[in-house]
Structures are given as C-alpha cells and as structure tokens.
C-alpha cells in the first residue's frame, strides 16, 4: 500500500493528466459562475412588452396607458384598435399581455358607474405575468383612488382630508432580505453553490470511478477499512482544499461582483463549507462505486442537477411535496446546507438560529460514513468471493 502522501501526489498528477477532471473541477466552476450567474446580473425584469387595445379612445384611457408605460416593469409596445390585431402580437410572443379599455370606460369611471379594464395575461411564464398584473393593478388602484378623491372634493371635503379618506388603510408591504422581490437576489446565491456542488460531484466522481476500476481501489480484497479510508482521504483532500478555495473566492469576489448580500463570518461559512463538501465527497464515493466507466458517470450524473436542486426545498417548499419526497430531500446534503447558507448569508441569522440544520448536516455526514463502511464491506466481500471461486 502506498503512503498517504504518495496517494495524494498521484491524485494531483491524475487531475492534470485527465483533461476531463481538469475541465470539470478547474474550468467549469468559474466559467459557470460568471457565465450562468451573469444571466441574472440585471436581477429584475423590466419593460415587459404589453399591447393596449383602446375601444374608448378617451383622455382617461390615454392617461392610464401613459401611466402604465411610465411604470418601470411594463412597456407599452403598441396601441391597437381591435383585439384581433393585438392577439397577433400576443400569439407571436411579442407582447406578454393585453390591456383593453372597453367603450364607455371614461364615462363610466367619471360618473362612478363601475368601469373596468380587461387584462389578458400570457400565463405560460409566471414571472412576466405576475409583474404585468402587479403593475396594472397598481396603476388602476391609483386611478381609482384619484376618482374617489375627486368625488370627496366635489362634496366639499378639503383636499388633504379627501386624500386620506380615499384610501383609509394604506398598505405598507416591506419585502425583507430582497427589497424589490427580484429573481436574481433570490436564485443566484444558491445557484452558485449548486454549480460548486455539481462540478464537485462529477469531477471527484470521475476520479473515484477511475480508482475503483483501474487503480488502488481495485484490489480491495486484501485491504482493511483503514486502508480504504486512507486512500479516499488522500484522494479527496485536494478536492476539499480546492472547493474551499472556490467558496472563499465566491464569497469574496463573485458575490460582490453580482451585488449579492453576504452576511456572517467568512470563517464560519468556510467551516460549514468543510462539513458540506466532506458530506458531498462521501456520498459521491458511495454512488461512484456503482459505476464502471468515468464517461458513464458523467453521462448519468449530468442529469442530477435539476432533480437535486428542485427537491432541496429552495424553489418549492418541502412541506408541499409528497411524504416520500420529503424523506428523500432530507437525506441530501444540499437540503440543510442551502437552508443554513440562506439563513446565514442572506438573512443574517446567528449560530443559535441554525442549530437544527447544523445537526442535520452532521448527522448526514455520520450516516454517510456508516454507509461508506457498509459499501466497503460489500465490495470487499464480493471481491473475496470472486477470488475464492
């Protein structure tokens, strides 16, 4: 059996010889971080194109259209005299919504007879549909408030008092941790962590598959669990160091580059990073031990990104998933880590606020270690059986 240090050295040479591992672990994390991360650089969706169909052609409908166009989120992309014309652009995805003023809109509004505007939304994509809806509702509420105020003023109520009476309860909605409720601040921090997790799984897994089938882990029949762990620790220490360095670079350079909130001490984040990376490394060894070729590993694991992210509870609450998937989500290291990371970095939580997730991550590490032992025994026993027969 080689010494720990010589295994470590051969891992380094394997990484530099194997272009695939080199690409996955050294090029992909930074490339993805900037390339995919920059998708959300603007963070918010602005100027969503909508069409106006104005059957009323009144001053009020023109004013409402103007207000809509003036709102940051919406851009009036065309005025049409019939719904059929607007539908052409709507069907061609050139506009995401249609605002329609029916005939008599101004008259009904000013005479307080109950007017309405029609809003047709393309709900195949929620983000744009929600933003248009919010913008239109906001403009119409403002217009309604104005009309009510005008009525009160005409009833000899002083302007200041009329303003207050027109909207007796003022909603003050404060979005904490993401003031503008934008998609970039929500998704990007965890997307960056996901990039690290996936490149680590694929790159390190390739090395492990190679080791099991061609190198030191092949003749496992004569080895003890201690030898097994020695090989694995020497192989994985490089990845642990590299990915910790990535975490440091991400927190110190990439997060500020994308103007992402990052609270908490860097030291504590790196400590959590060690826990997370080690757990991921252990689970990767277990799964990689079932594969025969490194290409097969890449081929299959490339499909794990969406399933792992979507079940983690970050984009869709775990409580809303079926019971079986809730159990599955909780055996994945990303589930507690995403929670801890979000609580610390985004919400500025303290250590006492994340104890349960920390324990969860530690438990997964221990369970992983136990599973690794069982896997080692099963491989060794199989090899011994094969050798004896």
């Amino acid at each position, binding site marked *: 059996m080689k010494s720990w240090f010589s295994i470590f050295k051969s891992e380094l040479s394997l990484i530099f010889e194997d272009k695939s591992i080199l*690409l*996955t672990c050294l090029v992909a994390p930074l490339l993805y971080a900037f*390339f*995919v991360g*920059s*998708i*959300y650089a*603007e963070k918010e*969706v602005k100027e969503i194109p909508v069409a106006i169909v104005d059957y009323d052609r009144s001053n009020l409908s023109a004013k409402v259209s103007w207000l809509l166009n003036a709102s940051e989120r919406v851009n009036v992309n065309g005025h049409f005299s019939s719904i059929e014309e607007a539908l052409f652009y709507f*069907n*061609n995805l050139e506009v995401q919504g249609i605002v329609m003023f029916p005939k008599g809109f101004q008259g009904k*509004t000013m005479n307080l007879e*109950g*007017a309405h*505007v029609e*809003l*047709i*939304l*393309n709900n*195949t*994509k*929620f*983000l744009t549909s*929600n933003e248009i*809806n919010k913008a239109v*509702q906001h403009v*119409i509420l403002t217009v*309604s408030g104005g009309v009510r105020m005008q009525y009160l003023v005409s009833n000899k109520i002083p302007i200041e008092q009329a*303003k*207050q009476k027109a*909207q007796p*309860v*003022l*909603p*003050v*909605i*404060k*979005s*904490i*941790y993401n003031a503008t*409720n934008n*998609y970039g601040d*929500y*998704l990007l921090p965890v997307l960056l962590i996901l990039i690290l997790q996936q490149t680590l799984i694929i790159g390190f897994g390739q090395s492990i598959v190679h080791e099991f089938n061609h190198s030191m882990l092949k003749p496992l029949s004569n080895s003890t669990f201690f030898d097994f762990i020695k090989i694995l620790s020497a192989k994985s220490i490089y990845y642990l160091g590299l990915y910790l360095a990535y975490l440091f670079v991400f927190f110190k350079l990439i997060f500020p580059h994308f103007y992402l909130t990052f609270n908490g001490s860097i030291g504590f984040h790196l400590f959590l990073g060690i826990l997370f990376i080690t757990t991921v490394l252990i689970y990767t060894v277990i799964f990689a031990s079932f594969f025969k070729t490194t*290409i097969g590993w*890449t*081929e299959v694991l*490339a499909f794990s990104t*969406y*399933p792992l992210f979507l079940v983690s509870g*970050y984009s*869709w*609450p775990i409580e809303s*998933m*079926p019971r079986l*998937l809730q159990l599955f989500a909780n055996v994945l290291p990303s589930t507690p880590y995403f929670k801890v990371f979000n*609580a610390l970095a*985004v*919400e500025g939580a303290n250590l006492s*606020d994340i104890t349960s997730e920390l324990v969860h991550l530690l438990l997964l590490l221990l369970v992983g270690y136990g599973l690794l032992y069982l896997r080692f025994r099963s491989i060794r026993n199989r090899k011994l059986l094969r050798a004896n027969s």
Partner: protein
Amino acid sequence: MKAVINIIIRELFILKKRPAAWVLILLIPTAIFFYLGYIYKEGSIEHVNIAVLDLDHSDLSRKVIQNVEAAPKLNIIKFLNSHDHIDSIFTKHPEIKGFYLIPKGFEKKIYRGEQAKLLVYVNASNIVFGNLIYKEAASFINTMSAGINYNMLKAQGVPSEKALKMIMPVKVRSRPLFNSYYNYLYYLVPGLTTVLLQMLVFFLAARAINSEYSNQTYEALLKIADGSIFKLIIGKLLTYTLIGVMVGVFIFSAVHPLLGIPASSGTLPFLAVVFLFVLVNAMLGIMVSVIFKNEAIAMDVSFVYNSPAFVFSGFTFPIMAMPAFNAWYAQLIPYTHFLHAYVKGIEMETPFTFLLDHILDLIIFFLVGYIVACIILLRRNTKVLA
C-alpha cells in the same frame, strides 16, 4: 438503404452493451420525469404560515386578524408581542414567512377619518412565498379599505349599489390564459421534461463517432457504410433520432397525461416539431462526437453546453431581461427555439404559421451540425487515404 439499416442495427447493439446508455434511455424517462412531476404534485402552495403583531389591541384590530385568518392561503401560526424583535423574527422562526403589524392607534385613526397604515413584512429571500403573501396582503388591505369606504358612503346616505361602484370605480378583470390557476406542475414540468429530452439525445449521440475511434472500429463502420460518410452519418443520426422520438412520444403520451398536465389539441401535429428537435440534437451530438475524439471531453463539452439550457431558454427568467451577451448565447441553444415553438404550439395552441420561424431556426441548427460533421469526417478520410 441496406447500409443505413445495418448501421442502425449495429448502433443499437452497441448501445445495448453500454449500461449508462440504458440508464439514460430507460431510467430518465421512467423515473426522473415522474419524480420531477411528483415534486410539484400539489400544483400550487396552499398555505403560507404567517404571524400577527397587534400593537393596537382594539376591536377593529381584532376584526382585521379575524379577516386575515379567514384568508384561504394564509395560516396564522403565531401571535407576536411587543417584546419580539421585528428584525429577527424570520431568523428565530423560519417557519414564519410573513407577518402583519397593526400599529398602535390604528382604530382611532380610522374612526377619525384619517389614513391608517397596515404593515406587512414579507420574507422575500424566497420569492415564491414573497409573491404569494404580497398578493394576498395587497388584495386584503384594498378590500378592507373598500369596506371602510363603503360604510362611510352608506352613512352619507348613498344607496348600496351606488356605494359599491364608488368604492372601486375601476376594476381590473384579469384573465391569465393557458394556466389560469398558476399551477406549478403545468408550468415547470413540461419545460423540464423537454430540456432533459434534449440532453438525453445529445449525450447519447456525443459518443456516436468518437467511440468508434476509441474502440478502433471506425474502419469497419466505414466499410458497412460502403465508404460513404453520408450513409454513416444518416445511420447514426437515425438511431439516436429514433430513440429520442420514442422518448418524446412517451413524454407526451404517458408522462404528461399521467401527471395530470392538461392535454392540448395541438399535441399530435406538434410531434413533427418534436421529431425535428430530436433530429437537431442528435445531429449536434454527432457533430461534437466528430470534433472531439476523446469521449470524456466530448461528454464534458456536451455537459457544459446542455446543462444551462433551461436557464438560458427564458423559461423561468425572460431572455429580454438578460444582458446582451447572454441573450445572444441563448439563441445558440436549440432548446430556446424549441421552447418558443412548444409554448405557442402546445400551450397557446396558436396556428402552425406562428411556429414557422422557430422551425426554420431548428433547421439551421441541423444544417450547421451536418455540414461541420461532414467536412471534418471527409477531411479525416482524405488524410487517411493520402
């Protein structure tokens, strides 16, 4: 024709011996697609846990709380008190996603005819909850304002029907089309299954040619193809297209219906676009396989190219909101064009003419893949012969 059929049969035998290919062809469609659908089984978030902090302790504030409790999607799980630190509520109680704060003097202000504020704090680090509470809160407070206005007008002797029209002189009649109930299953799963279809076909095809070099069987393959690059590519292309089309048909005929995703009258004619989409990805995969003789590198390139296809496609974050370079790069991925066609053809059920531009884009992808693959293989053959 015989040569092409022989290549197809040979390719299917090669795939049979590759366990990873079996995982891709069988496990992804039968397990992963359903697994993804299973995540979103509920379709929408039915309940959001919130808290209330009542600093007014008046009859009106209690009425407000009762009304909040009656809101179908909001679930009050905690009544906060003045000793709770507002700044740390979300970190101390992560299960609380938002809270209503009724300030002191709320009732008095309303009865004096002054404007009162009702504060709603939302944990927007998750915008799914953030948007939901925002929507519920805005609608609740406006209804409440309307109620107060209604009572005021009635007290002034305005008839009930007139008062109702006056409190909301203009209403918005929203018609969210194609997914009226904001169902996440209908929204996300078709996108996920089709992007995985692209990856599946691309990944399988990305080992079509280079594996022949690795196994030193390229010469034998060329012989089966009667020395014709054209027949060789067509044989390989048809194999992966056939597999992809079968998976595509499985998605539309079994996965989506079994998950309860509404059927579309446009599905059957749209299968022609699915065929083209699969053909394009098989061709691009073969092109990558021709360019990179090393299978592992070809696989890495396929991974780098395909894995961000979903986020670049504009499915969750619109392309128009991306920086210019990203928006341009999004056009270099076939999935972006397929998605536009999918949305129009299946979800919006628009006439076929609206899909033509996207079909043309996909054809361009195919031609680029085919021409590049042919040129490289022809040059390699010429070198070997020379």
